[in-house]
């Protein structure tokens, strides 16, 4: 039994606390009374993974066992989520490869030979052959790629099918192979440290136009007082229900522990007052080596990290039926109860987010990471109260990956230079970017995110931005932060001083000690 999550109230005995800031970290001394939210210690992994996979397939919830769903002639499509989860990527072998192998064994045993594998990339970039191989393993890759193993293409009209509209009038256009399948097996890694856990399998299989319903411009939910991610969740559920009404979906969720870093960085998992001399030495060595390493090499070292996650649970069955159990497993690893909202929430942003795996966390993605991912790492209510202040730690370097994020460069240079208002930029620019032939070409043939992707990231960040009163970046590039509409501070003390205008001189401060992943269950 691992120790549960814990909320520390900073007092005079509290040592400086570890804070991530991009490709680096620091020890920061927080004001007295700050609530520091630690996740539970790593929960035990499944002792026999293969047995757990077999058991999940044989004993699903709300569904017959997988073998009974398959008959000779069944058109089977296996959908799996891409490199955007988990971050950092999982050390080989990826759990997806084990599960997909097990599914293929069941399919082979039932003489199913019409099998296709699709990476649910949505509007994210295609995976390189090496990345696909890392997800599905060598054997599957060698057997299925390229004809029967591929990435979803949200712009290929020939492989998209309109399956209907939701009650809210959202046209749902999905991958044709999925729509035409007799059975869709969704192999999902769920690290859902966001409201309500991972999205449904439909999110990564939509056309570009239908994706707009999920991630489109913020609308009435902000005005109506709903929580920032509520609209996204509701739209996802409506669209998933439509797909599941048309196609039989068998979902296999796996959950992971919090082992996000290799053993040499094990101090990351520990509470600072429990650091041994060895941990302190490891921290100082890592910090010193990190600061002395040339920037390019440092970037490569960070992005080459592979996390030694252990699988904490595998659940399969009808998507609605397994949701509760999956979320319970996520909660067991990440959830910490917090009493009440704070005036100020502090987030230390790490080197990578879901859209910058093997890439660069550009300024727009920093906003997405801070206000999209970290802000939404809550249950119940956001960690910070409406009108409060978010303090982010990240250098926000003015750097972009030219292959992965071409439209982000133009979005930052042209769009955000004129306005950060989501409604304005939606009306003025979104269509241009969405229909830009060059972006389409790069998305479909190179390894670029879709042209409209930065808008979706920005809209999600804006939902949180509209909720809070101010966003202050500690240690950020001033020009880049200003372009995002954020203020910049050199130190935490400066940031807190700047925040007094919004939250007064005695604010209640909460620091989400993340990573490792922490989910604040705010009561």
């Amino acid at each position, binding site marked *: 039994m691992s120790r549960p999550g814990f909320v520390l109230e900073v007092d005079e005995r509290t040592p400086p606390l570890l804070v991530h800031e991009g490709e680096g970290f620091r020890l920061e001394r927080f004001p007295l009374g700050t609530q520091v939210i630690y996740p539970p210690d790593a929960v035990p992994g499944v002792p026999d993974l293969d047995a757990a996979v077999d058991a999940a397939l044989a004993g699903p919830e709300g569904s017959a066992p997988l073998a009974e769903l398959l008959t000779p002639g069944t058109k089977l499509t296996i959908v799996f989520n891409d490199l955007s989860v988990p971050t950092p990527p999982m050390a080989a072998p990826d759990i997806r490869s084990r599960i997909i192998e097990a599914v293929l064994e069941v399919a082979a045993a039932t003489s199913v030979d019409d099998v296709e594998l699709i990476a649910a990339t949505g509007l994210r970039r295609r995976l390189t052959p090496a990345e696909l191989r890392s997800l599905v393993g060598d054997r599957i890759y060698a057997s299925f790629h390229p004809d029967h193993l591929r990435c979803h293409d949200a712009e290929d009209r020939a492989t998209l099918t309109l399956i209907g509209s939701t009650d809210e009038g959202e046209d749902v256009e999905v991958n044709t192979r999925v729509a035409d399948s007799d059975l869709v097996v969704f192999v999902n890694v769920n690290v859902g440290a966001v409201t309500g856990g991972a999205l449904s399998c439909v999110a990564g299989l939509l056309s570009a136009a239908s994706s707009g319903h999920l991630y489109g411009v913020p609308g009435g939910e902000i005005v109506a007082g709903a929580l920032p991610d509520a609209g996204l969740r509701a739209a996802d559920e409506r669209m998933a229900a439509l797909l599941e009404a048309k196609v039989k979906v068998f979902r296999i969720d796996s959950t992971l522990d919090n082992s996000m870093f290799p053993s040499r960085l094990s101090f990351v998992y520990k509470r600072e007052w429990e650091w041994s001399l060895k941990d302190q030495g490891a921290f100082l060595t890592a910090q010193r080596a990190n600061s002395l390493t040339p920037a390019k090499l440092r970037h490569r070292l960070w992005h080459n990290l592979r996390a030694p996650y252990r699988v904490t649970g595998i659940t399969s069955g009808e998507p609605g039926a397994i949701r509760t159990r999956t979320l319970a497993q996520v909660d067991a690893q990440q959830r910490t109860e917090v009493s009440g909202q704070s005036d100020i929430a502090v987030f230390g942003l790490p080197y990578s987010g879901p859209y910058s795996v093997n890439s660069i966390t550009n300024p727009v993605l920093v906003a997405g990471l801070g206000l999209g991912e970290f802000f939404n790492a809550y249950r119940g209510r956001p960690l910070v109260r409406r009108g409060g202040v978010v303090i982010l730690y990240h250098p926000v370097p003015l750097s972009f990956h030219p292959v992965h994020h071409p439209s982000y460069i*133009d979005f930052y*240079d*042209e769009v955000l230079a004129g306005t950060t208002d989501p409604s304005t930029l939606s009306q003025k620019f979104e269509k241009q970017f969405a229909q*830009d*032939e*060059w972006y389409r070409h790069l998305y479909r043939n190179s390894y670029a995110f879709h042209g409209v992707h930065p808008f979706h990231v920005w809209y999600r960040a804006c939902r949180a931005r509209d909720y809070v009163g101010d966003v202050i970046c500690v240690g950020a590039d001033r020009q880049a932060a200003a372009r995002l509409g954020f203020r910049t501070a050199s130190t935490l003390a400066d940031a807190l001083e700047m925040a007094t205008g919004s939250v007064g001189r005695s604010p209640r401060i909460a620091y989400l000690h993340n990573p490792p992943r922490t989910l604040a269950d705010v009561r």
Partner: protein
Amino acid sequence: MIPAVEYHRSALRFLAARGASGRVSGVLGDAVAGSLAPLRLVNLPDPKRPAEGWVRVRPKLSGICGSDLALLSAKASPYLSPVVSTPFIPGHEVVGELLDGAGDVPAGTRVVLDPVLACATRDIEPCAQCAAGEESRCDHVTAGVVSAGLQTGFCADTGGGWSGMLVAHERQLHAVPDGLSDKAALLVEPLACAVHSVRRAAIPDGASVVIVGAGTIGLLTLLAVREYAAPGAVYVVAKHKHQHDRAVALGATEVVDPRQAPRVLRRATGASLHDPERGPDYLLGGVDVAFECTGSSGLDAALRLVRAGGRVVLSGMPSRGADLTPVWFRELELIGSYASAGSRQEGDGNRTTGDFADALVLAGTAPIERYVDAVYPLSQWREAIGHALAAGRLGSVKVAFDPTKD
């Protein structure tokens, strides 16, 4: 005797100015380069009228042009050396006062100067180009009654605007309307060049245009494009904030930073962007017509922004090489545009047309008077040249001399 800032041949100064302009960057470098220019302030006898038809002009303002600066900072091509005669008084952008009557125009009239020294001014039979009305292309700029010189301001015998007096042929002079200020009149010559560039470009209706550079020539080209063509979008590549604002005021569709130009124009034109192993990005697709108005690296940039079969007009005097591969690969038209096409009498002889005459009219209606925002006496030629070299960074457009000031 008249005061004059004189250009003289000096190998030492040539090398020093070239070194300073190339190695010391920023405003300081420009100030150093200005001080090292092969110029000297001298007192000279009044220039002599070389033949009938020549008159004396007292400059009131004389601008410092990009071609002057290229010469003074030793960046100009040696190609031009046979068509200048030294020592000479620079200054070919001139608004002045007639000291002698010129035909029907009485002494005391304010005039602007069309600086081209073509056959008619040299008192010789017209060459084929002059006979065809293309005096800016004159083949005889080294012959006749005055020494070699492509223009006033590069000829040893005519004097130039950076002095208390010059001589000019009657055909070179245009009376300035009363309503036109001296500062606005000073810009008539570069505006005529811009009008000429636009006519050389023959922009099809609705075509997209990019103007690379937003100094004097770039801004005036934008003005002329809006006046004498019916383009679609007009993009301006501008380095500095004040240039951005001025271009917007003159009707630019969008003004972009040089570093962002390929990406912005890619989006605007639906082109694709490509990143060669070495050198800047370029477009496949792009704008229809480009004007190079920097006199330096703008040509290379312009060639990379134009669609296949597009047109690139060289408005600035080239002082730096460019990779001409796009001209070959994309089958671009590279069009030179030098000075302005001569004025012509039309109808009953009361109406003058041509680039210069049109520029004179346009200068009276356009909001350009404030472009002349730094005026120096001749005695401060070092500061003036330094300022002109750094004009963009210092927020200026046109720096000029006022030879009437002490």
